[in-house]
């Protein structure tokens, strides 16, 4: 188990390192860096050179990378080129926003999606199943930003209410915090509930088709007993696995939703940093995205191992 963990972590680390390197080189290949943006239509060539040297952009790319990597290994992620704030602070704060949004969305998706999936699976082929599946497919098909936009405008028109604009953390002002997150969570949560429900339905259906379940039903065991005795146990593992998958999907979808609802999360930070060519922020934000995806995958695998006795023995 420990050996497995070490091996996985090592591979993940290598992947993350490669990912940062590729991004590092990639963003520097294109024209229009931060200095050009600071200069705008004004400025002199000498001032431009001076500023480029200030940011180290006059060095060869590989030297810039190793300088960055060296700093990162010492725990120094640098300073934003446009804002001057430490990358760790900016990315950290943005990540907390995204994490809160992601977890709350996951909670909603789970609360709605799992029961729907189980019900659909148990009543496979009946009208209830068809209805739930129609909801699922609609949810999978709907573009998240479009749903968000419709909800924002719809709520504004119906209730004359729109979310507050200044983000406050849950510890600062919980009600403002939730008021700001409510619509994004709803938009993203229901769509992801559809995806979750679809996964769960499939595992319930396949569990229902297992011979021993069929036998139990044939013997006249009440549905409820069959469900709790046989099915739930079989379905528990996929539900946990899917939770990780859904969380990663949510973190992807959050990028778009944040841009729509003016949330100062990681996605919006990444987008604005790409726009302003603030490379240290791009680098830091992507590193967090990559590492989070890896950690979630790793945790899912570990839980999977813990829950499944067969895997634990091997």
């Amino acid at each position, binding site marked *: 188990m420990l050996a497995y963990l070490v091996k996985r972590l090592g591979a993940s680390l290598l992947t993350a390192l490669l990912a940062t390197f590729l991004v590092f080189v990639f963003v520097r290949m294109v024209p229009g860096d931060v200095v050009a943006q600071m200069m705008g239509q004004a400025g002199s060539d000498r001032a431009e050179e*001076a500023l480029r040297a200030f940011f180290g952009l006059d060095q060869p790319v590989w030297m810039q990378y190793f300088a960055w990597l060296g700093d990162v290994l010492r725990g120094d992620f640098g300073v934003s080129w446009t804002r001057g704030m430490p990358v760790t602070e900016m990315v950290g704060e943005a990540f907390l926003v995204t994490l809160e949004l992601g977890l709350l969305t996951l909670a909603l998706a789970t609360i709605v999606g799992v029961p729907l999936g189980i019900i659909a699976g148990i009543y496979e082929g009946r009208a209830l199943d068809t209805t739930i599946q129609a909801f699922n497919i609609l949810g999978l098909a709907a573009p998240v930003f479009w749903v968000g936009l419709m909800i924002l405008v719809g709520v504004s028109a119906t209730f004359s209410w729109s979310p507050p604009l200044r983000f406050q953390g849950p510890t600062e002002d919980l009600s403002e915090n939730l008021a700001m997150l409510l619509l994004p969570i709803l938009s993203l949560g229901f769509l992801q509930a559809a995806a979750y429900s679809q996964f769960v339905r499939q595992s319930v259906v396949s569990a229902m088709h297992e011979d021993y379940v069929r036998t139990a039903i044939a013997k006249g065991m009440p549905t409820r007993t069959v469900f709790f005795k046989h099915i739930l146990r079989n379905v528990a593992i996929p539900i946990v696995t899917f939770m990780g998958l859904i969380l990663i999907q949510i973190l992807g979808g959050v990028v778009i939703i944040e841009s729509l609802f003016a949330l100062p999360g990681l996605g*919006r930070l990444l987008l604005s940093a790409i726009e302003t060519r603030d490379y240290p922020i791009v680098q830091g934000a992507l590193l967090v995205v990559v590492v989070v995806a890896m950690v979630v995958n790793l945790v899912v695998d570990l839980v999977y191992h813990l829950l499944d006795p067969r895997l634990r023995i091997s």
Partner: protein
Amino acid sequence: MTKTFDLTRWRHATGAAVTAVALALAAPAFAQDLYGPIPDDPNMGGTLNMGLLVEPPGLDPFHQAADARIQMTVLMYQGLFYEGADGEAMPLLAESYEVSDDGLTYTFKLREGVTFHDGSEMTAEDVAYSYDYIRDPENGSPGAGDFEIISNIEVVDDYTVRFTLSAPNASLPMTLGNKYGAVIPAGYFDDENAQNRMNSQSVGTGPFQLVEFNPNSNLMMERFDGYWEGNAPYLDAINFSFLPNSASMLVALRNDRIDLVNLSRPQDVQQIEGIEGIEIERFPSLNQKAIDLGAEQEALSDVRVRQAISLATDKQELMEAAIGGYGEVIGTMTKAMEERWGVPIDELPMQGVDVEQARALLEEAGYGDGLELTLTTINGYDWMDPAAVTLKEQLGEIGIDLDIQRVDLGVWIDNFRSRNMGLTFNDWASQPDPNLLFYRHFHQQPEGADFRNWNNEEASALLDEGRAATDYDERRAIYADFQMELAETVPTIMLFSADHVVVHDADVENYVQHPTGWLYGLVRTYLDDAE
């Protein structure tokens, strides 16, 4: 309820803020108060919420050229002069000044009793330090080019400072305004972290000081109690929210999350007209939307092709499409400066739609069978998309086939600065002074940047003359000649100025939008319902 802009709002100067100018400049078209009209009996206090679509990339007046930065930092930092809305520089931190007969030495008397946000008092040494810092290109300021004409700065006494120029320059006072740089405490940049600190702590002399600046969220400023000017400002605090799109902005405005907005797309007015408790006002702007024609492209190097394009361009129709008519068509001068410096559009050559003549010119240039050109637009500039498709139709009339290409701002700026812009839309503004507007953009290299590769000797000579002349009438005549040349040989086609359309809650009083788009007006704004 739509109020249109009317000139009576620009009251004649009465306030204590306007002090004597030692050198008599030409009489301005109409005088005015510093920052905006001074109210008789403003309510004090309260927090104003303003919505903005573009977030400043940083708050450093010395190293950030972005207009989104300038519009906010003018509230926290001050230069020696204020860019009067009518195109005249008004003393700000300077109190008065004298110019030597050869026009090379400016002696500024400074305002006394001015304090920085850190509590220290402003003296001539701070002024000398600040302008010495920005004019040294090694310090990497985008404004360095504008200050190249200064050859020496000398502290005479605590409240007197003398600038020596390498050549006469009538627009020096306007250059010492608030676009680039500001007066900050001497030695500020000695600390290597100073540049970054400006994003968390302001060090200027302005009426507001920085409280917090949260990326992708908001910026909060509060009243600076040590501010030198009377009882201004009247607001306790201003909270700027940065919104990612106009949809969110309009929704927030409707639901009272925002009190004041300067619409980036004037036509958005249609979406909020008729809402109870919201007032709409229009103000003229210094901004200009233009078509630039870079002569580095073979077809565009032929003046006849450029003239044909100018003749085929229907500015009115472009404006209708781009901003729904919320602006004014211009000749060669932005709307807010037209009265003082411009040539009336009907006296300019190559204006108006004349398809026949345009076709003839193209034929003469050897493009009778048609011509393919690429028009560049910039990602994020909403007006360019509808304008581009409209221009495509218009130029189609004379056999020019436009291929529209949208690029990122960074890429566009790179092309622009490397004088490789081709045919492109442009959206720019300057301080309200013809030298600052034209010189850098249109003077031959190396003195100017000549971004459009116009390389026009005659025009450059006029620009030199205009810069050296100090008499208003003389300057006006020189710049009129320049504008005739500009219109005749078409390195650029200035299309229209979009109005500033300000939408605010009925409680918001006395906000006047400065033509630059900068937020000076907030210094004079107050809230009805403030306690």
